[in-house]
């Protein structure tokens, strides 16, 4: 699903960039945000693997509330490094949050929702991560 989702996400990011007066800067912003989202997803996967391997999840009762807490914590922890990188490499460009949302929809949203079930905790997690993605995009486009 994710490879398919990259097509509309890429189109949205590209379209947003080309609408700007300075398409070069906007395209660079879009590329950086896209890479930042990919890094976020990669670190998130890494965190899941480490947590699963550590056996600590077995001490936690499997419930929707606990699942939301664990997933949200992993998402926030994994986005810190990409956020830092994007902030440090920021160049002024508009609509950073929009690029963040577009690449989030292409790279991360298809991996949420428990395979299409979308219970309430998944919806809340997706909303939280959409907000984080917009923050990351905004950080990448901030001027000095």
């Amino acid at each position, binding site marked *: 699903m994710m490879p398919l989702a990259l097509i509309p996400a890429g189109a949205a990011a590209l379209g947003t960039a080309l609408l700007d007066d300075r398409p070069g800067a906007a395209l660079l912003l879009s590329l950086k945000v896209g890479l930042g989202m990919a*890094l976020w997803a990669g670190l998130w996967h890494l965190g899941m693997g480490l*947590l699963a391997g550590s056996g600590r999840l077995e001490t936690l009762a*499997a419930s929707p509330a606990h*699942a939301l807490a664990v997933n949200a914590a992993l998402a926030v922890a994994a986005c810190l490094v990409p956020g830092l990188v994007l902030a440090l490499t920021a160049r002024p460009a508009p609509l950073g949050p929009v690029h963040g949302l577009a690449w989030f929809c292409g790279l991360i949203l298809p991996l*949420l929702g428990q395979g299409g079930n979308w219970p309430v905790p998944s919806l809340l997690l997706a909303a939280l991560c959409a907000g984080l993605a917009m923050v990351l995009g905004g950080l990448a486009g901030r001027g000095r």
Partner: protein
Amino acid sequence: MKALAILLALLPLTLCPAPLMADWTRTGLEFHEQTPPPDPVVDRTRVATQQARRCAGSSIRFGDTAAMRGGVQADWDDQTRTLAAIAAMADSYDTASEALAATEEDGATLDSLSVLTALQFGQPVSVPTEGLAGPMLADRLFWQAMTQVPSATTATWANDILPALDAAFQADPSSFQVRAWRVIAWLQAQGFQRASCPARIADFADRLLDLSEASACPLMLGHVTHGIDRALESRPETDPDATRAAWRHFGEALLATVAGAPEVASWRGAQLTRSPDPCAPLMASELQALLRPEAAR
């Protein structure tokens, strides 16, 4: 940028599947509780029992009437027996009905023979059920259903014929013809079914297993499926109704599983993957689950 490159290099590690942990599982980027496996829809115990019995006989009888099935004893004198034999062998309705009218015997058994004779000659006949019970009632309910078959719509199959056959099954579980026609009637009425997929599959599977309870013999079940094809005037592959075709594939696959022909059942199950019926995926997964112990043998 160097840090970014190093972290991206670690990305392949994240693609390794994580082990499942107790009640937790992961789907994509989410940990969540494991959903318990669904309850089996097709009765596994009945399937296993019939597979073990295979061609052994059962208490189910193949006679057209209660008397032929041994459900009632016709204590007739010689003259009545002779006249009944004449009626059974006659090639015209007039001859048969005159022979039956000439008997001095009276009673429900002879009345049933008169009704059956009229039906066999395609004559209009009323089929009373008052005051009857057990095998005799089952016959009358079955014949009432059969009189409606030639002009039945899907609504008639669902609202009249199927309930009559189910009532006949309750009245006399030993009648094979009732068990067979309960499957045909369900297929004819399937367009009117409004229950959930698990409920419909369980209902249809129960009817099929009622049918194969007579004998899970490959030859007999092959004859039965041929009889169903003739009643529906098509093979499952040529059925113009695509959703009914899916149910027919499932039915033949289940009977093949019971009869010990897993390759036939697998092929039929594979046809379900191309079906537009919304219950087809559940039917296919049930067949796969039933075939797994067979494949392991």
